[in-house]
């Protein structure tokens, strides 16, 4: 194990979030140079810092894939589960102890392919967990296979002639399934994404933040998207704030991504409703006695 002191930065540029919320002995991370996941992990840590959440009371749950490694780097109670099942594990943790702040960090394949069923049902149930998706449009860990968010026509190692599937809009999918909070951020839009994740955690109910990541190693290379900087520049130039998008036509929005909180509605959170039911049963029993 590496001594924490050995990895302390020589400059002040490295975020103090690393010492407060990460496990420096498990860094550096395994993500490729230029990967957007590190930025998104930092956004999550910053949102937690801004909200002043307790480290002991915050749980990070991940599935399998590049995104899932975030759980190991963050210094909370962390659980790296099976592929696609992070939301189902998180449901058990939240239901067992609703006072916990439960945050799921997942990838696009993890959450919308193998874990798609858990995503839509957690959204429907409105259980108070926050899901942050590191959406890089590809299966990175296994070497660049197309995922449910790979655009039609794009290439992957399993789409050598171009992807003929249509792709999911994960934020839209969650909204359609009844998520009371559905939003999109990006690796480029750091400040906006931190704010959105903060709002998502604060929201009482199921919240999903689909964060556009970048995978220069696989998605970028396979699809000639240039360097990580080029891919982030694409996000800068093609993501439209939700307020502006509302005034645009479908045609104008083609090929763009909407940035911001797409939907936020308040209705009763699942574990709150369950505990209300328990209280009602106890009160009725007391009356009978």
């Amino acid at each position, binding site marked *: 194990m590496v001594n924490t002191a050995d990895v302390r930065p020589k400059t002040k540029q490295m975020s103090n979030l690393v010492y407060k919320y990460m496990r420096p002995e498990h860094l550096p991370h395994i993500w490729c140079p230029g990967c957007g996941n590190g930025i998104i992990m930092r956004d999550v840590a910053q949102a937690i810092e801004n909200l002043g959440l307790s480290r*002991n009371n915050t749980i990070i749950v991940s599935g399998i894939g590049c995104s899932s490694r975030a759980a190991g780097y963050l210094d909370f109670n962390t659980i790296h589960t099976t592929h696609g099942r992070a939301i189902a594990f998180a449901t058990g943790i939240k239901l067992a102890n609703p006072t916990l702040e439960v945050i799921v960090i997942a990838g696009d394949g993890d959450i919308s392919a193998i874990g798609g069923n858990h995503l839509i049902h957690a959204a429907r149930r409105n259980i108070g967990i926050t899901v942050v998706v590191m959406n890089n449009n590809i299966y990175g860990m296994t070497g660049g296979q197309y995922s449910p968010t790979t655009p039609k026509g794009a290439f992957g190692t399993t789409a050598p002639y171009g992807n003929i599937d249509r792709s999911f809009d994960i934020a839209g999918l969650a909204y359609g399934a009844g998520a009371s909070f559905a939003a999109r951020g990006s690796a480029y839009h750091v400040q906006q994404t931190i704010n959105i994740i903060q709002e998502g955690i604060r929201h009482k109910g199921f919240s999903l933040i689909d964060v556009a990541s970048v995978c220069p190693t696989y998605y970028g290379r396979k699809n000639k998207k240039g360097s990580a900087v080029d891919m982030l520049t694409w996000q800068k130039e093609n993501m439209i704030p939700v307020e502006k998008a509302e005034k645009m036509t479908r045609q104008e929005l083609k090929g763009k991504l909407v940035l911001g909180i797409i939907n936020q509605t308040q209705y009763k959170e699942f574990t709150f409703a369950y505990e209300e039911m328990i209280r009602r049963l106890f009160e009725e*029993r007391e009356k009978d006695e």
Partner: protein
Amino acid sequence: MGKVVLMQGNEACVEGALAAGMRLYAGYPITPSTEIAELSALRLPQVGGKFIQMEDEIASIACAIGASVAGVKSMTATSGPGFSLKQENLGYAVLAEIPLVVVDVQRMGPSTGMPTSPSQGDMMMARWGTHGDHPVIAICPSSVKEVYDLTVRAFNLSEKYRTPVLLMMDEIIGHLREGMELPEPGSLKIVDRPTVNHPDSKRLPYRMKPGQLVPAMAPFGKGQRYNITGLIHDESGFPTNSTDEAEAMMSRLMHKISDNYDDIKDVVTENLEDADIAIFCYGGTYRAAKTAMEVAREKGYKVGIFRPRTVWPFPEEELREASKKLKRIIVAEHNYGQMLLEVQRVAGRDCEIGFVGKWNGGVNKPIRILERIEEG
């Protein structure tokens, strides 16, 4: 004397689980285990516990594991097709050492099979269903009373050894109704996992202190911050690629069960003292075997019963010992011959092994076992 009640096997499972301290159940409807979900939904909120009907079988076991990680005793129940679906996460709970009870009320398979028909066709899946080498504790009750008692034992073993325990019921026992005496309140021995509650401690979460059976487990949110993973990990709970550390971890997992064989084993024998024939049976099949034994005894055959209630780990020592005095062992089970393979392996050199199986959805009747005894 405790209160005597008329109860169904599936109901006794829920009442036993509640007595053992279950406070969360996650499940998905499937015949013939559904009554376990239904009664859990009714009873859990009455004691301040939680029931959740998940979107599928995989989510159910995942949710139960999550609850256990947060320090709440949990259970999920299913039947054959659902048990197949749960296998991956079952292995997760074995590797990450999460206490949990998984009930399989077996029905005839493969595939959708015959959903309301008796079977014991999942016995080998219980042993080898999840991928990779792993230890297993699996328990088979033969009466409603035993369902209650052995559900309590399943929870106790899972807490003591930090491992999922499989309660392998079958349709006969799940749907059987009979009278049973509830234990006197406070008379049950309830085991809770060893825990630690120091949030900022630097303790290695998977390191054992001398004399401990398993490392103490910090409940999420109430104890030390640490990492849980389904990857092979070292004592810090973080992944390792070291073959030495992988071997240390795997052998600790294996040994925590094999070294405690005497505590985990549970065999009931009847009339073996003078017997030269034994019927090897478990679960619902015992009821036919018992009648066959009684009738055979009346006819002058020296027949006894060897009945494991803990089927995995397999009771090798007891069966090997018993087989030395026996001429024949007749294995009776509701499948094409699964535990038969184990009996042949352990006792095949000392005695002749006969088989009375049933794999058509019907019931293994006493007359068929009796005929096999009389065939000689």
